[in-house]
């Protein structure tokens, strides 16, 4: 009997002890983990200061010459080699600190690992322990506007007008002239600022990043074929690969990878189709859906034929693992990627030498009277969202911070690093001295630009170089290991007229409440149906003869409404841009 009591007592004691240790250990953990400005402690001080929401507690009274203390919450960029935890060892971080000090700013940064950021931000935004500035990218536009109307985040245009020294406006209106329409609501309010990116230009033309089919140049060489220019050339090439067993393993297993469940796979664009359930026909300023376009049936017939021939291995659809496996085994003759991408070759890990994927740019004559489209990532990009929460009382300080971000100096250290060490200015153009190093080397040498180190925590404003001549730009591209064919493909994209943007959202003004209503209601249903139908038509389990009934179903699901809504948004975008 007594033994039982003793055991019970022992168990209870043990539990309490463990729990107490756990609690205590956590205190120790907090204080020892803090090197500089992350997590635990700043969180605690955050809660204290923001819960009070007394102006006297937070920051200093708004006078120039005073130091403004601001708290920021954002995702840890999580770069493998250039680690945020080691930021104190990087000169470029020091440069950032100097810049902040110059502007009278002090930042307390809370960095949360990226993979849990989405969940975390949704819950934090509903609580009262908010920092001054937050990266709210995982939350969608409509929710943010609602939060703005409710007061959780602050409206910015008034603040900018009142305190800004003009940097922000300059960036959004002059340098990145597509910026403002994308962050203003239909009533002209601004609730968040974004990352801005502008690509290089040469001779005044913006260099864009095209996407499309990349084919194995080394296999073409082995088969004595030229780079395919028409669809027929391409079909011929991929069949020849298989027939002559160009990968030399004794089996006719050469395939190509095409993502059949979507229209964004390079091949659909060859048939003049858009790159999503709705897409922008930029040449005509119209929102269209591939389902209504001219050659959609020809496209499916073609893909179906390739699947029948076994050239497209349909088992790979939807499974990255299997796709990677095919690539690793040196089976893939063509694939879809950015035209300038140089990383594709690294996927082949079975020891083959001379692997060389090169972009095709586009293929003509897919069908009678067919004009191929090119999917393009425009030079100017707007993405991510940073907003100011209701917890921020030092409004002047915050705008000063934003002015600093949207300035040339910050943009330089973010994109390039430190002048003289990481980049140089030659003939009026910026030339990077560290771009040829791999990330691993950069991490070891502790030299880097700001972007991989803290990008995402603070807004990214990425500048580029304006090359006076095409040749100068080409030189630069060659130092980045881009082959001639890739450079040519990039050049062709600059002048190509029939293109559709990769990021449709960069061309749509913000939706009104009713428009959001419609989008939320119909989007998932249409996407599900469209994805399924794409695969079924490709596989042949759905017949092209019943195409009209499919269109009927899409109409029932609301495709026309969706097109109308996106068209209205596009029109508004164009208006406010001009």
């Amino acid at each position, binding site marked *: 009997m007594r033994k039982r009591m003793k055991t019970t007592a022992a168990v209870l004691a043990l539990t309490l002890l463990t729990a107490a240790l756990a609690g205590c250990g956590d205190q120790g953990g907090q204080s020892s983990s803090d090197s500089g400005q992350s997590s635990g402690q700043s969180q605690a001080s955050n809660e204290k200061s923001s819960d009070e929401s007394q102006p006297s507690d937070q920051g200093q009274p708004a006078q120039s010459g005073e130091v403004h203390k601001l708290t920021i919450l954002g995702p840890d960029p999580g770069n493998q080699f250039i680690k945020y935890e080691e930021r104190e060892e990087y000169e470029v971080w020091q440069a950032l600190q100097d810049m902040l000090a110059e502007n009278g700013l002090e930042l307390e940064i809370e960095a949360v690992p990226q993979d849990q950021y989405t969940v975390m931000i949704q819950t934090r*935004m509903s609580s009262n322990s908010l920092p001054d500035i937050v990266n709210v990218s995982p939350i969608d536009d409509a929710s943010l506007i609602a939060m703005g109307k409710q007061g959780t985040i602050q409206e910015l245009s008034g603040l900018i007008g009142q305190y800004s020294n003009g940097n922000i406006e300059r960036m959004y209106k002059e340098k990145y002239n597509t910026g403002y329409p994308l962050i203003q609501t239909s009533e002209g309010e601004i609730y968040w600022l974004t990352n801005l990116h502008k690509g290089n230009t040469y001779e005044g033309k913006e260099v864009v990043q095209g996407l499309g089919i990349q084919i194995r140049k080394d296999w073409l060489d082995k088969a004595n074929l030229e780079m395919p220019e028409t669809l027929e050339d391409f079909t011929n090439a991929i069949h020849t690969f298989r027939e002559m067993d160009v990968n030399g393993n004794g089996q006719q297993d050469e395939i190509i990878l095409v993502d059949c469940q979507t229209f964004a796979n390079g091949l659909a664009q060859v048939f003049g189709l858009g790159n999503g359930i709705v897409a922008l026909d930029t040449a005509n300023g119209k929102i269209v859906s591939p389902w209504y376009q001219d050659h959609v049936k020809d496209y499916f017939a073609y893909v179906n034929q390739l699947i029948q021939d076994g050239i497209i291995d349909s*088992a790979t659809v939807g499974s990255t*693992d*299997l796709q990677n496996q095919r690539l690793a085994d040196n089976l893939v003759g063509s694939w879809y990627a950015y035209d300038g991408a140089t990383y594709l070759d690294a996927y082949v890990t079975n020891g083959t030498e001379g692997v060389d994927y090169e972009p095709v740019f586009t293929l003509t004559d897919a069908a009678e009277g067919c004009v191929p489209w090119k999917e393009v990532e425009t030079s100017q990009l707007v993405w991510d969202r940073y907003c100011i929460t209701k917890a921020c009382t030092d409004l002047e300080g915050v705008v000063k911070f934003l002015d600093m971000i949207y300035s040339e100096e910050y943009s330089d250290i973010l994109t390039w690093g430190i002048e003289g060490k990481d980049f140089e200015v030659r003939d009026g153009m910026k030339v990077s001295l560290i771009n040829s190093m791999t990330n691993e080397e950069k991490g070891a040498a502790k030299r880097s630009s700001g972007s991989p180190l803290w990008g995402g925590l603070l807004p990214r404003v990425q500048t580029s170089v304006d090359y006076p001549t095409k040749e100068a730009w080409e030189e630069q591209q060659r130092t980045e290991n881009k082959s001639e064919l890739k450079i040519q493909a990039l050049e062709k994209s600059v002048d190509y007229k029939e293109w559709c943007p990769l990021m449709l959202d960069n061309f749509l003004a913000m939706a009104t409440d009713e428009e959001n209503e419609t989008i939320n209601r119909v989007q998932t249903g249409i996407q*599900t149906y469209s994805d*399924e139908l794409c695969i079924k038509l490709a596989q042949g389990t759905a017949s092209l003869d019943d195409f009209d009934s499919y269109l009927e179903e899409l109409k029932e699901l609301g495709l026309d409404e969706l097109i109308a809504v996106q068209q209205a948004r596009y029109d508004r975008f164009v208006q406010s841009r001009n």
Partner: protein
Amino acid sequence: MRVREKTGRPGGMKRKKGYRKKVSWREQWELMLIMLPAFALIFIFCYIPMYGIVIAFQEYVPGAPMIAFDGSTKWVGLKHFMDFISSRTFPRLIRNTLVLNGLNLLFGFSIPILFALILNEVKLSRYKKIVQTASYLPYFISTVIVAGMVLSFLDTNGLVNTVRKMMGLSVKAFNMDPKAFPAIYTVTNVWKSFGWDSILYLSAMSSIDMNLYEAAKMDGANRAQQMWYITIPSIKPTIMLLLIFAIGGMLGTNTDLILLLYNPATYETADVIGTYVYRDSLLGGRFSFGTAVGLFTSVLNFTLVFIANKVSAKVADYSLW
């Protein structure tokens, strides 16, 4: 059988229906104090946050107050429910959910019992331990890896197709065939959890009185009869308990596994409520909708538990409460 009464009924059967003498207030107080730590924790961490259910009836955004009387919450009543039920994919979602769960119930419920029964009969103790440990290993392999393995086995040059080739059959892309999906899902699910699920049954079997078996042997019962008349009835309460809860899970699925195994080609049989809500949530800002769907399935599940309990009380004399 008197032997049985003496050593007790290993289960939770009701003893007397009808009137039960109530305890004294002092005893009541004593008992409630004993319950207090556990129930207090449940109250704090389960009941207090329950008010969040109301966002199913609102258009909620993070930061908005969930319950306010000044008009700052946007109530939309049953809108989300109606949106969900009247959407064109709804019938398919319900059908797939029920089918996949039905299969899981049929196989995933009976196999652990079968396995436990057979393992219980094995006398070699070391062998038994090895088999037992091996059987629950799959439970620990994370779903992501399991799905990767399954896809690679079903691949056109994977294990299954290699065997098919050897038998002279054509190579088939199983992961693209909607007809194959329910089988793939069920087999994977059962394989992953049967060992783990059998632990409870084995534990219940271990407390059966050996004398019962002796007595039965002397009456001439063979092994199968012993199993049927002694082992199974002895673990009946456990079986009923788990069965009731399994039925109460008919509208939830192992969504993670489905997300990893499916693709648009198999939506027809693979798209369930959980996966649809997941894709929808990627649009962003769909808090209220997700909660509404969750509430919808919870209500249905709870109803099922209730019904299952009543049936179990009548038929098998076992009831939760």
